[in-house]
């Protein structure tokens, strides 16, 4: 398929277009010249530290605030001028717990449904279905103030899905929740594209972005990198590969292996960890991203020389490393 045909297809799939957005507050610039597009059916992740402007993007996307410059369109609609038209298109899961504590879980959902003008029959059926999905059916008649943090987060997530929006916007949806709830929430999010939803997710958890994102941007007031697939960004920022394996110490004494790794494969041993009297774990970094080539040569050499290899893994620098390299600062500063 030609590049122009592919570009054309991508354009057709573009659901949200963010064009040269700047948001200024008195004495501070929250966002500077941001442009990116979000495609239909993908999980798009906006990652950045606190104060990077992630929530500002969410507010701009949902038309809650006005950009100082630039425009945002969902389909052909301007998020600000045509706000009434876009309100039913998205479901928002805010960063804060925005539930009515004096209402039960079900009453919170019913209130949302009535605001979105859903019919009673549809609403009842959908609420039952969502409560089962979130594992809250047994607690539906309890006041929300008695729920745990994770349960509240799950309730917020299903509330955003109640009116069947096309886009689900999640602003740090797992902030402060336990691992169990986080896993459950991740499972729902991963399931959303199969239901035809487009997901926009902001997070400052690297592992969350690594686990969920189809494409992402790294944000720190400006776009530091992206949009792109995590792998693309990793390869661009760290064009390196790390392999790690366990072998017998005796193999190193002959120096054949290290000579091969350094001279033939152009790798560099970065760590050597003793595991026992006989075994050692080696970590070698390569200035290439061609995994297959390295892998094939390495396996061929070890087989030919009867070198025992166990626990072989190929690693890339994680998102946190990418962020530190790009911004020169720790992620959670």
């Amino acid at each position, binding site marked *: 398929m030609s590049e122009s045909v592919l570009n054309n297809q991508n354009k057709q799939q573009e659901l949200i277009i963010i064009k040269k957005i700047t948001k200024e507050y008195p004495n501070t610039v929250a966002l500077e010249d941001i442009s990116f597009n979000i495609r239909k059916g993908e999980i798009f992740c906006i990652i950045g530290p606190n104060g990077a402007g992630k929530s500002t993007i969410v507010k701009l996307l949902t038309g*809650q605030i006005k950009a100082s410059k630039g425009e945002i369109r969902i389909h052909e609609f301007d998020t600000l001028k045509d706000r*009434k038209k876009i309100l039913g298109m998205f479901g*928002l899961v805010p960063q804060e717990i*925005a539930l009515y504590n004096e209402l039960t879980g079900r*009453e919170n959902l019913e209130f949302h449904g009535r*605001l*979105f*003008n859903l019919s009673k029959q549809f609403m009842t059926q959908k609420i039952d279905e969502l409560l089962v999905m979130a594992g809250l059916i047994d607690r539906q008649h309890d006041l929300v103030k008695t729920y745990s943090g994770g349960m509240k987060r799950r309730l917020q997530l299903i509330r955003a899905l109640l009116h069947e929006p096309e886009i689900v916007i999640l602003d740090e949806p797992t902030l402060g929740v336990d691992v169990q709830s986080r896993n459950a929430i991740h499972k729902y999010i991963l399931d959303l594209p199969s239901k035809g939803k487009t997901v926009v997710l902001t997070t400052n958890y690297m592992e969350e972005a690594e686990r969920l994102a189809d494409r992402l941007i790294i944000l720190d007031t400006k776009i530091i990198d992206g949009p792109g697939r995590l792998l693309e960004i990793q390869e661009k920022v760290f064009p390196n590969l790390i392999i790690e394996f366990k072998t017998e110490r005796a193999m190193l004494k002959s120096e054949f292996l290290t000579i091969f790794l350094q001279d033939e494969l152009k790798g560099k041993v970065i760590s050597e960890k003793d595991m026992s009297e006989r075994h050692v774990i080696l970590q070698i970094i390569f200035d290439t991203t061609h995994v297959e080539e390295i892998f094939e040569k390495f396996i061929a050499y070890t087989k030919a020389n009867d070198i025992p290899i166990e626990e072989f893994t190929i690693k890339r620098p994680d998102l946190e490393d990418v962020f530190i390299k790009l911004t020169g600062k720790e992620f959670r500063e």
Partner: protein
Amino acid sequence: MNSVPDERKKLKYKLKKWFRDLSTIVKKDLLSTKRVKQYFFAGVIPPLVMLIVFSSFTQISDPETYTVIIVDDDNSQLSEIMVDYVANISSDIAPWFTTIKVSTYDEAVVLLRDFTYLGLIYIPSGFDANITSGIPGQKGMVYLIVQNINNDYVKNYMQRLDEAVLTFNEKEHVSVGSVDMFAVSLDKTYVIDQEVNNGKSITLGIIAMYGIICGLVFGALNIAKEYEDSTIIEIANSPVRRTAYMASKQLISVILGGLVILILSILLFLLFHIEFRGDIFIVIISFVLITWIHSGIGCLIGLKFKRTMPVLLICIIASMLLWFFTGGFAPLMILGENIMLISRFIPATYWTEILIAETLYPSLPYILPRLGILIILSIIITLVSWYLISKEGFRS
């Protein structure tokens, strides 16, 4: 060709949606309030405490200055002497009473109905002629019409006035032939012919003030709480009509305020035996209007400050100020012309006047214009507050 029916359908849909939004938020707020018991105590206990404190305070307070109108239609030598007598008792014996002369009876009645003055002493034409006619039983009449602010000081004043008439009869007696005649009689009319509890006027003031507070506080707190709990995000990202949201918060304030005032009135009756007089329908209408107006202002305060504690403080201070400028602390006439002028621009002035008039001096020609002003002000304030929320939205 179909555009007109289509427009009608759209309008019908919009109206239906507007009322659905309104009822959804009202139901939700009522349910939340029902489940938080402290709302009830917070609503009823402060006015009761205020009532007890203020009632105790007024028992030992110094008298205020009252002014009595004098109209002398006779303009004779004897009527002038009579006027001197009543003027003197006001200034010497009870210095808190002053008199003012007005040229016509009609003008005086208008002033009396406006509650500008305490009472009217009227000497009709023929006063001199009747005294000096020599016909047995024919007397000169002095008419006294008194508002029913009949506390102990006013009662004392009435006794002094009786004494003044007696003194006149003794000193300025008229001899017809060889017989000395007691020629003047005092005719007293009370606007309300029953004794009024001392605490009644202050109680009315508290109810009036609580009408203002209910509107401001409930309106402001309702919105500030939504910001504090972040639930405003849910509202802001839903297709709820901004005006319907505002109206629902105002309606909630009226319902809760009405409930508090009702409970308060029942408690007042049971504890202090204070009965309600006047037209309940007019009082309810004016209460709804005044709470509606103030809840509109309260909602704007809530939208601006977004936190419950600052909002509560602002509303209480604002209520105190409004109460001051509407004569809650002291009658407006003794606070000076400037404050009287300012009070005319404050809706609560008309609510207080209607409430006092309905209880003390029910008169439709007096009440209806004030009710009309309240309706106009409520429309203006509603339009302004709805315009502001439509323009500003719920942006943080």
